[in-house]
């Protein structure tokens, strides 16, 4: 029979469609609405994985997000292989393909289980002890061993083909958790007119009402009420209802991170449909209704498949219609597990026994169990279990001592009480308060605008929970007190009892494996050992034993671990402390966090208006910040070296055309513009004539070079400033900073015009001939428009700011035109250029040509520790100025001390040898180690125009070393170099007018 453990009369899936899926290659049938866990249990499968350290067989413990054991791989296709998926959360769909993890060769026969026999070697802290020595073994033995053994699932080895979405959202009231409390709060807040977001991690809202059969709300069974309220809320404009959505992180000022799973439950999602959506919600008020998490009992061999939480068995039965066994035993320290026995018994499942370690539990559930003829062993404890891949028996004895007895069973449900889910409250930086009477940490004073309601606030009464949640939602929405809504709610289930720490048979003298933390294989004995070895704070115990450090973050185990440590230390629980709850509450994919920001949207790719032309003409591009810049333009058969050599030659023989659009541009406007420029740059500006340009150097206050660029004066009160490509945003920020905060009285304003202008540099002896036919209204003669001048006029019928300037040492122009005209003007210039044999050149040629002239590039010759004096730019400092940013910094003792690294040229003895940029420079390569370093090569190229290699370098006392021989040590031997001037070509600078 298919699904032998499905009980037709139980649960809510009813006549749902059958769904076929596979687990470890074997085909199974489940029902639409099942989780992988419920579907496997319907087929009698408990064994789903091997534990992390000891490789012990493990099965489902829970029915929810707190699951420590049932982690599986879900493989949609070759690229979509999600590891460590909780089977209790994953919904099944037709064709779902799940595999077990951490086993070899198979789940039922796993070689790694030898670790279990060798467990004395893997006790607490073994990482810190075992692998200490010998040192050499670390690399060869320990690390490979740990790497192979570490981790559970297998990470996918291909790029993630899925897309993910991001959404910023704002609301008045954010409710986390859609159980009775959360729904009540959301309902009240929505009724009061608030903008509400309700998030629940399950596929359907309802929370504990999934299994709690005794609840009645508003005259309806609890589950039915939950679905009715959900439908009502979903239809409202002021409510956003998010299911399959986990509130995973609580950040400052009520920013809460939610992750919504959109497609993992679908058979074949559309390819452009995001798999997950990250919600970054800013809420005026937050209502936390996150419920409580049941704890297991800690006793010897409490981890066999088939041993699970009582509430989980109720969920599988009452919601999914699945019984977890045919002959089920119960071991509990509280009332709630009794209800599981009653539910199962009424569904026709045999109950082997109810074992309750309390001497005399009372209540209607106890009477009902006795009435149904269930064997009730109160004052008893389970001290061991039998079975290899599934629990088959339990050992029971009286707590007071006495004979042990074995009871056969095929499942064991345990409960030691409930831990309020205070994770998000704690993340919000609210302090937790320990309630000694109920042995629980509960939310204390909130430090953000939030309120906790229901089980996460310690409330165990449904009527009170609904009332307090309605009040919280109403008040969070700003509702008036007299309109506070009311709902009748009551439950036949009222639970008390529970215990923390190890039970009978797992006490201080026991060597048994009584698991506290299933996922990291931490036992009660490990915790005790940690204390014995000197750990006093729970933070130390945690790190020493790794308890609570697995992907479930100890949702079921932390309180047990704490209690055992406290008992060992003989101190009250709050004094031992609680470990910090950190985001995320449950694991979040990197995809969700990255959102849209991958692939083409990883970061903006900026292109100039002439980009497509360059691409069509074969340009190779390089990344400069976010910009794509044409690097060089290889012609047929050319490699980079040949292309750059040709471009360099052509520029100096005829002309070259270069896209300089990416340079930063700032318009400085106002009557105090020159005064402001005087403060921001080392140079004098007051006397710069309108229509003239100057090379400016900008320093930080510490005296080091920050940026440089050519500045043109367009009018008495208007400067056109250029910056380096990469420096554009920070230079504007730097200037705005001084203008707004230090010199606010200056009448000047700054505007970025970087992208207003496309810039076409035309450089070379033929440059004027090329542009002359296109320019209108500007006299281009040397008398009318000398080197370093700027004119406004027309080119190709559109306005231009035409600069006569040169970064190549040749006669040159930079044509600025409004960006949308850039491509057309470029093409017109290109057409003229072709008549003169001009070439298009890229950034590499630009670099070589400027280096031939000894022009620096900020960020290449400078590194934030270079002064204008070091760079040979003393001439650019206005000698009569009384202040500019960096002036005082420049006078600091170390900045004027002798021996500073200064910019020089280097020529290799062998003219063909091209030095490596970044290479170190020494005076004597044979000096004993450590060899004193004199400096390093900042730029180095083959210069076609010079016929030899050229380099710029920062060398200690370099200006005094002209003609000296120095050495650049390389792996193949030291390269001999001579210190020279930084100018390698046209030393007199005649060609700018040539």
């Amino acid at each position, binding site marked *: 029979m298919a699904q032998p453990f499905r009980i037709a009369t139980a649960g809510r899936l009813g006549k749902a469609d059958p769904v076929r899926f596979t687990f470890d290659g074997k085909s199974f049938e489940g029902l639409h609405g099942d989780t992988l866990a419920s579907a496997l249990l319907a087929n009698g499968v408990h064994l789903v994985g091997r534990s992390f350290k000891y490789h012990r067989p493990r099965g489902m413990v829970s029915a929810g997000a707190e699951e420590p054991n049932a982690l599986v791989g879900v493989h949609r296709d070759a690229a979509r292989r999600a590891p460590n998926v909780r089977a209790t959360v994953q919904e099944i769909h037709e064709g779902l393909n799940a595999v077990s993890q951490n086993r070899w060769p198979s789940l039922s026969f796993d070689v790694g289980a030898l670790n279990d026999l060798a467990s004395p070697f893997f006790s607490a802290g073994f990482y810190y002890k075992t692998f200490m020595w010998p040192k050499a073994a670390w690399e060869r033995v320990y690390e490979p061993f740990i790497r192979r053994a570490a981790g559970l699932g297998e990470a996918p080895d291909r790029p993630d083909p899925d897309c993910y979405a991001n959404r910023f959202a704002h609301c008045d009231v954010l409710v986390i958790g859609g159980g009775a409390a959360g729904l009540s709060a959301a309902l009240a807040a929505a009724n009061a007119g608030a903008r509400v977001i309700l998030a629940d991690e399950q596929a359907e809202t309802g929370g504990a009402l999934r299994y709690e059969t005794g609840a009645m709300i508003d005259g309806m069974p609890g589950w039915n009420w939950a679905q009715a309220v959900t439908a009502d809320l979903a239809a409202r404009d002021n409510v956003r209802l998010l299911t399959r959505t986990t509130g995973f992180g609580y950040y400052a*000022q009520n920013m809460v991170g939610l992750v919504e799973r959109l497609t993992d439950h679908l058979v074949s999602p559309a390819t452009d449909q995001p798999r997950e959506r990250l919600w970054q919600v800013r809420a005026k008020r937050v209502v936390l209704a996150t419920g409580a998490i049941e704890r297991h009992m800690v006793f010897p061999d409490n981890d066999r498949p088939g041993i699970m939480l009582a509430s989980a068995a109720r969920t599988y039965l009452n919601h999914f219609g699945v019984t977890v066994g045919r002959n089920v035993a119960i071991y509990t320290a509280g009332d709630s597990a009794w209800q599981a026995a009653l539910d199962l018994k009424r569904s026709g499942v045999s109950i082997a026994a109810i074992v309750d370690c309390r001497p005399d539990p009372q209540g209607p559930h106890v009477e009902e169990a006795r009435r149904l003829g269930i064997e009730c062993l109160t004052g008893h404890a389970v001290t061991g279990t039998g079975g290899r891949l599934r629990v088959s028996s339990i050992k029971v004895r009286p707590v007071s001592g006495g004979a042990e007895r074995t009871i056969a069973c095929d499942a064991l449900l345990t409960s030691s009480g409930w831990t309020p889910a205070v994770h998000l409250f704690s993340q919000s930086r609210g302090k937790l308060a320990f309630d000694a009477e109920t042995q629980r940490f509960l939310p204390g004073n909130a430090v953000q605008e939030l309120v906790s309601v229901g089980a996460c606030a310690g409330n165990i009464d449904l009527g009170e929970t609904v009332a307090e949640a309605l009040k919280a939602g109403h008040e969070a929405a700003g509702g008036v007190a007299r309109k506070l809504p009311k709902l009748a709610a009551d439950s036949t289930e009222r639970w008390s009892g529970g215990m923390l720490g190890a039970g009978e048979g797992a006490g201080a003298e026991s060597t048994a494996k009584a698991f506290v933390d299933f996922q990291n294989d931490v036992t009660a004995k490990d915790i005790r050992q940690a204390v014995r070895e000197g750990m006093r704070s729970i933070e130390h115990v945690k790190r020493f034993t790794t308890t609570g450090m697995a992907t479930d973050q100890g949702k079921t185990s932390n309180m047990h671990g704490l209690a055992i440590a406290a008992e060992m230390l003989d101190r009250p629980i709050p004094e031992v402390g609680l470990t910090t709850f950190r985001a995320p509450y449950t694991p979040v994919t990197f995809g969700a966090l990255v959102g849209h920001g991958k692939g083409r949207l990883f970061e903006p790719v900026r292109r100039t208006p002439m980009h497509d032309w360059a691409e069509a003409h074969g340009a190779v591009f390089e990344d400069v910040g976010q910009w794509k810049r044409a690097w060089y333009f290889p012609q047929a058969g050319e490699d980079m070296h040949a292309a750059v050599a040709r471009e360099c030659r052509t520029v100096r023989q005829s002309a070259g055309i270069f896209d300089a659009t990416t340079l930063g541009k700032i318009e400085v406007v106002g009557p105090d513009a020159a005064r402001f420029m005087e403060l921001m740059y080392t140079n004098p500006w007051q006397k710069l004539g309108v229509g003239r340009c100057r090379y400016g150097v900008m320093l930080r206050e510490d005296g080091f070079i920050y940026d440089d660029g050519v500045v043109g004066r367009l009018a008495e009160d208007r400067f056109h400033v250029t910056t380096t490509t990469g420096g554009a945003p920070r230079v504007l920020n730097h200037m705005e900073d001084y203008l707004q*905060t230090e010199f606010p009285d200056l009448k000047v304003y700054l505007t970025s015009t970087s992208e207003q202008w496309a810039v076409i540099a035309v450089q070379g002896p033929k440059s004027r001939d090329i542009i002359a036919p296109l320019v209108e209204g500007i006299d281009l003669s040397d008398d009318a428009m000398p080197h370093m001048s700027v004119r406004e006029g027309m080119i190709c019928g559109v306005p231009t700011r035409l600069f006569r300037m040169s970064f190549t040492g040749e006669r040159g122009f930079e044509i600025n035109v409004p960006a949308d005209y850039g491509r057309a003007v470029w093409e017109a210039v290109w057409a003229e250029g072709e008549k003169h044999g001009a070439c298009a050149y890229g950034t590499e040629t630009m670099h070589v040509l400027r280096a031939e002239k000894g022009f620096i590039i900020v960020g290449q010759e400078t590194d934030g520790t270079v002064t204008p004096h070091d760079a040979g730019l003393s001439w650019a400092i206005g000698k009569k100025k009384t202040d500019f940013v960096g002036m005082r910094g420049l006078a600091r003792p170390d900045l004027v001390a002798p021996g500073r690294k200064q910019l020089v040229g280097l020529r290799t003895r062998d003219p063909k040898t091209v030095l490596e940029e970044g290479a170190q420079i020494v005076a004597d390569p044979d000096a004993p180690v450590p060899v004193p370093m004199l400096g390093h090569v900042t730029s180095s190229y083959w210069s076609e125009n010079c016929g030899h290699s050229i380099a710029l370098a920062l060398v200690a006392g370099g200006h005094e070393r002209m003609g000296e021989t120095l050495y650049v040590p390389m792996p193949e031997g030291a390269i001999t170099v001579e210190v020279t001037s930084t100018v390698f070509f046209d030393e007199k600078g005649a060609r700018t007018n040539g």
Partner: protein
Amino acid sequence: MLLIHCPYCEEGRPELEFRHAGEAHIARPENMAELSDEDFERFFFIRSNPKGIVYERWRHIHGCARFFNAARDTVSDRFLTTYKAGEPKPDLDGEGK
């Protein structure tokens, strides 16, 4: 992500629009040229960096683009107040403790 009240935009805006700009109320000396090395060191290098209330500069760089000042508690990360550049340091005795 913090929500920062911009005194110029007169509303709380997401931190993504802002950039931190270091300690506030450190005026650039007007007599720069005459500053001793010790005074320059104090002005340029020395910062208080206390645990607790700090006065710091922010720029609403992707908003109104104005620099302004803020008092923030580094323990709770809570902004106590923000105010326009040039306004005096607010008196926050007893706040944020």
